[in-house]
């Protein structure tokens, strides 16, 4: 088990190195003078020169890179121009909001897509199968920001079932005591029913918008994988041994079919983290996505750089977890490693 963990960690290191190099390059690729960008649009030449020395932008590129690594190691991602606050602090404050949204969306997608995929495979060729295909194809064609807007219009403006898309909690409610930063968990832990229900209502539309977007790859992969497994030799043996349909489908087929689905979760997360930015914009969700978008509008570069780096590191960590979980589930990988 430990060996598996270590070997997976080892593969993550080149990724982290690549991520750091790319994010470094992104800041130095700014057209014109990077110092001018970091100083802001309204800066005087003097201010720009100050920033240049302050951020070490006058040094050679390798020196800058070393300084950059040093900064990262100390958790220094620079300061935001508009607020003057350290980017790191602002990201850490906003991260739970994005994380909660993304994880709830993923949970929703998995809970819908996987049973749908299994059903479509078991009832291949029937109307269930075709409906599944159409729904998932449509889901992946819809731009996630458009879906979000549509939902906001229909469910909030027209039907008034959903609350106003103004953030994590209604303005009249106060957030639950901070333990994890996840409103759902915190309110559950402190028995704060009002906050729990309030957060859930606010989460509903954005999470559903994101979930719809990621239904397709999950359902399609589950269906394809399930079909492949159902046609395989060992399922034939299982049927020939008279095992009950439930045992055949769930204990034998599904457990094997779920393996490629775990692998596809990596790609799904890539989509979700991207969709996160768009959904946060539509619903004014106070996460790091909205933070970055606002920074972009005001040409505030340090937050954008910090955002890209954070998302990338998060993504590498997520992929690591997925790899590890896969190793736990598939003995062939575990015992060979």
């Amino acid at each position, binding site marked *: 088990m430990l060996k598996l963990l270590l070997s997976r960690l080892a593969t993550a290191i080149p990724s982290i190195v*690549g991520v750091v190099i790319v994010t470094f390059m992104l800041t130095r690729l700014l057209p014109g003078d990077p110092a001018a960008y970091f100083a802001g649009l309204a800066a005087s030449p003097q201010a720009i020169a100050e920033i240049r020395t302050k951020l070490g932008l006058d040094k050679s590129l390798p020196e800058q890179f070393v300084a950059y690594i040093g900064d990262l190691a100390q958790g220094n991602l620079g300061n935001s121009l508009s607020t003057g606050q350290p980017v790191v602090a602002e990201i850490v404050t906003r991260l739970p909001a994005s994380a909660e949204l993304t994880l709830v969306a993923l949970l929703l997608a998995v809970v819908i897509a996987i049973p749908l995929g299994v059903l479509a495979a078991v009832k291949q060729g029937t109307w269930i199968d075709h409906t599944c295909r159409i729904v998932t194809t449509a889901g992946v064609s819809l731009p996630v920001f458009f879906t979000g807007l549509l939902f906001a*219009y229909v469910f909030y403006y027209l039907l008034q079932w959903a609350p106003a898309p103004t953030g994590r909690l209604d303005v009249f409610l106060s957030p639950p005591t901070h333990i994890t930063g996840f409103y759902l968990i915190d309110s559950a832990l402190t028995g704060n029913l009002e906050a729990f229900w309030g957060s859930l209502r606010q989460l509903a539309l954005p999470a559903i918008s994101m979930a719809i977007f990621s239904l397709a790859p999950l359902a399609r992969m589950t269906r394809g994988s399930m079909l492949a497994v159902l046609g395989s030799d060992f399922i034939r043996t299982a049927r020939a041994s008279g095992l009950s349909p439930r045992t055949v489908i769930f204990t034998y087929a599904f457990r094997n079919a779920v393996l490629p689905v775990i692998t596809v979760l990596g790609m799904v997360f890539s989509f979700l983290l991207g969709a996160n*930015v768009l959904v946060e914009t539509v619903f004014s969700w106070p996460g790091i996505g909205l933070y970055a*978008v606002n920074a972009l509008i005001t040409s505030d570069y340090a937050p954008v750089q910090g955002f890209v780096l954070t*998302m990338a590191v998060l993504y590498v960590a997520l992929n690591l977890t997925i790899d590890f979980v896969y190793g736990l589930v598939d003995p062939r990988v575990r015992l060979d490693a």
Partner: protein
Amino acid sequence: MLPLLRHARYVLSENPVTGLAFGLFAMFLVAAILGPVLAPYNPMQSNAAMALKPPSAAHWFGTDQLGRDIFSRVLVATRLDLTIAFASVILAFLLGALSGVAAGYFGGWTDRIVGRLADTIMAFPLFVLAMGIVAALGNEVINIVIATAIINFPLYARVARAEANVRRDAGFVEAARLSGNGETRVLLGHILPNIMPIMMVQMSLTMGYAILNAAGLSFIGLGVRPPAAEWGIMVAEGANFIQSGEWWIALFPGLALMLAVFCFNLLGDGLRDIIDPRMRT
């Protein structure tokens, strides 16, 4: 050629939806090429008196906050959106397919470098990377093309590499080498043309994604700027008015987006069925 057409007709008859996709594609092409000519109004013409009017006989899709005709804007936006998508797909193909076949054919360091590059790109959530690239390169349309191409690079490289690898020792490649062609010539003149059909399938499959990507970037304010007519930016403008009930400003460009992506997805599926049904999931 004839067997291919016959096979194409068989696939189309089995799968009428693909025929529908081809029809839609033709419609989009017409809109892209003839858009400005066909538009009933000048898409840039503002008319304060006619602002925020719902769909009517005069304005099929209604008007926006500046009184511009939305139908004309959606129609004309086709050109910009499809151009951006085509350009990024072709750029991704050039970058990805060329490095991919080189990696698959030569192996060794070429393979390692291309692989490392692709892996580094894939270590990022792709849309986030695109955001970072456009922010770094500058808020221009050309940078949207470049960013979208970069994030699609790994996919093309991977497919091209696999295909080149398979063909490396194939008969026709041997023959080309023996006829005295240099390695580059073999690569570009023989292997690359041979994998074109599969690359075309990839390209049409990623067109839909490229359109979504470009629209997403312009939705958050990157690349395309007002008053340009582009579907993503039009949805963004319309988003401000959703809460006050003017739904048509965001809806029609959004539907156009959806239809275009849907069309290209179906097209990609259909092309794949025609060219290589074994690739089906």
